[in-house]
């Protein structure tokens, strides 16, 4: 086998995995994406379709470009000085770099949760209400209250914080803060949620809580998660892409990646021989 399979499609994956379910629709798709930081190339020719309402995990050793790829999907790389992205990335078959797409609108549709919990220096309530307010999603206070409650409830945080909504978001524990950030991200009703190692700063119990949450959320949202932990990828995701040295080495069903990888490098990484 030479090189990598350039055209990943869910139909062929399904044939190979011989599953009976219908293949998922493509929500986002990257085609031939190159990313440069200054002169240094960080990603090379990445082709990756993202399935609708599934969890896609991106794994690989540090510095392999998986976080860079994630940030391309909601154009957070725009804020990085000297960063250049080429190739096409589509959301619902519309190129996110096309001039008709407003980056602000894009980010409202493609939300993001960061590696370290980053609540705003505001109250718990205002943290959640921030997005709905700036996007003018509500007409009155009652609607806003409702969104805040729903978002917190979906992030599994409502019962813990319902009596202390006016306390600062930073007063919560690390795991609660991360769930607050997830609630904040889903409060604007995004279609896709990007998660950049959301559990790497958390203890195992908080991690388990977030993983459960991801499982529940994927009914409603398309989720892409970057993770260092292969166990986590295996636990939460339906599809997994393995990045190495700036390329997408292999992309397949999570089960296939972990039990029957086609590429030597993937095999080496998932069996722990390097990484």
């Amino acid at each position, binding site marked *: 086998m030479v090189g990598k399979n350039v055209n990943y499609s869910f139909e062929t994956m399904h044939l190979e995995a011989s599953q009976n379910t219908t293949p998922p629709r493509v929500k986002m798709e990257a085609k031939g994406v190159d990313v440069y930081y200054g002169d240094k190339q960080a990603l090379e020719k990445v082709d990756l379709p993202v399935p609708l309402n599934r969890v896609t995990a991106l794994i690989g050793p540090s510095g392999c470009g998986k976080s860079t790829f994630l940030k391309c999907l*909601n154009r*957070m790389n725009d*804020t990085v000085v000297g960063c250049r992205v080429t190739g096409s990335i589509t959301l619902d078959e519309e190129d996110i770099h096309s001039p008709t797409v407003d980056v*602000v*609108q*894009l*980010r*409202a*549709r493609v*939300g*993001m949760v*960061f590696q*370290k919990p*980053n*609540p*705003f*220096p*505001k*109250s718990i309530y205002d943290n959640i209400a*921030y*997005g709905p307010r*700036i*996007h003018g999603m509500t007409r009155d206070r009652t609607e806003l209250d409702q969104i805040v409650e729903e978002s917190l409830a979906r992030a599994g945080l409502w019962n813990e914080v319902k009596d202390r909504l006016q306390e*600062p978001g*930073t007063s919560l524990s690390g795991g609660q803060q991360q769930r607050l*950030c997830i609630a*904040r*991200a889903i409060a*604007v009703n995004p279609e896709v949620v990007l998660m950049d190692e959301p559990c790497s700063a958390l203890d195992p119990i908080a991690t388990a809580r977030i993983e459960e949450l991801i499982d529940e959320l994927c009914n409603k949202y398309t989720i892409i998660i970057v993770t260092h932990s292969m166990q986590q990828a295996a636990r939460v995701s339906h599809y997994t892409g393995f990045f190495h040295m700036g390329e997408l080495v292999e992309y397949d069903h999570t089960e296939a990646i972990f039990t029957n990888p086609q590429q030597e490098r993937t095999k080496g990484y998932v069996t722990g021989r390097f990484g």
Partner: protein
Amino acid sequence: MGFSLIGTVLAIMAVLGFLIGNQRARGLARAGRLHSLPRYHGVFVALWTALPGLLMIILFAVFSTGMINSMVMENGQGGAGDPHMLAVELNKIQLIAEGRMPFQEGMGVSWDSVERMKNLHRNADILALFCVIAVGVVGFLYALRRIRTDFRARQEVERIVRVLLVVASSVSIFITLGIVLSLIFEALRFFAVVPVSDFIFGLQWSPQTAIRADQVGGSGSFGAIPLFAGTLMITGISILVAAPVGLFCAIYLSEFASPNVRGWVKPALEILAGIPTVVYGLFAALIVAPAISDFGGQIGLDIASESALAAGLVMGIMIIPFVSSLSDDVINAVPQAIRDGSLAMGATEAETIRQVVLPAALPGIVGALLLAISRAVGETMIVVMAAGLAANLTANPLQAMTTVTVQIVTLLVGDQEFDSPKTLAAFALGLTLFFVTLILNIVALGVVKRYHEKQ
């Protein structure tokens, strides 16, 4: 003076103490395990050698001159019994003894007492030297005796250093206290003449009382309201200029400017802070005030050539760098993570700055504004030159006004009698200003603290 010699001797003794203590500890280390590193033993000995001597030097510096003076006076002239004349005489003797004034017959002082003073000073220096060496040696021996393998030299040194740190911080506190106390006592003397209520609530400020019987002067009225109104007005105008300009400047520099632009603009702005205020005063008096006056004339307004507006505008320019530079620093210190968090929600940069970055940086920005206000309140030169000296009580910024600091200066310039209410009024003004700024600071700290709790 002999202090440089004594200081050198003390330093040499301390170095020797360190070397000997270090050596002794090393010697002991061969016999058994030392609790502390040898150099701590050395430092311990050095501190015990130097500190008592240093204390001795301070004692001598504080008390020797006074004692010598009283010895000279009780033995010599005796003066005419008048304490003022006595002080003048003593001053002459001192100057001659130090060689800063040639001795002449008929000066009212005898050569004997000059000689006597010289001798006493010489003796005092020698005595000081011996005392310092003596206490140094005693301290040295005491410290050396305490060196043992189980002696906790590190803890001891740390204890001494901690005491030194406490002393250093108390010095500044005590000096502040001294300044406040001197203000209070002088102000009390003023309030013995002028009732407090007249001072605080009086609407009329004209301190030009006659200080000698043959002078013509007003009866004097010391109502401070016009001065504080003027201070408030001019400070207010300057903050109205500096706060928006400085803050917008800081936002541009930290959020939008490329590193290159920032590297140029920030130092350039800080140059503004380095311009002497008297130059600002010239600028205000010669260019801004006439320009405002001319402009007023064109649109049919009667504007005095010296106006609070001119002073306030120029003062505002002066304090822009305080606001912009400090605010830029605190805005930069806001973590990138929460900016990214906001941008990733689909917030625009403006929304991110307004709703996330600025609130997070608010305590620092308030601090910057406070510093700017305290600079503006304390500023004198610009006001003297551009706003005049007339204590008008008016809400019209186009008229001449004056501030507390300017009045303090004018009260104390020239020949003064130090117990006339006119002079003492300066202390009362200073004290009031001190309390006003103190209350301002307390309020601002409270605001910042409440904000922190809410966060």
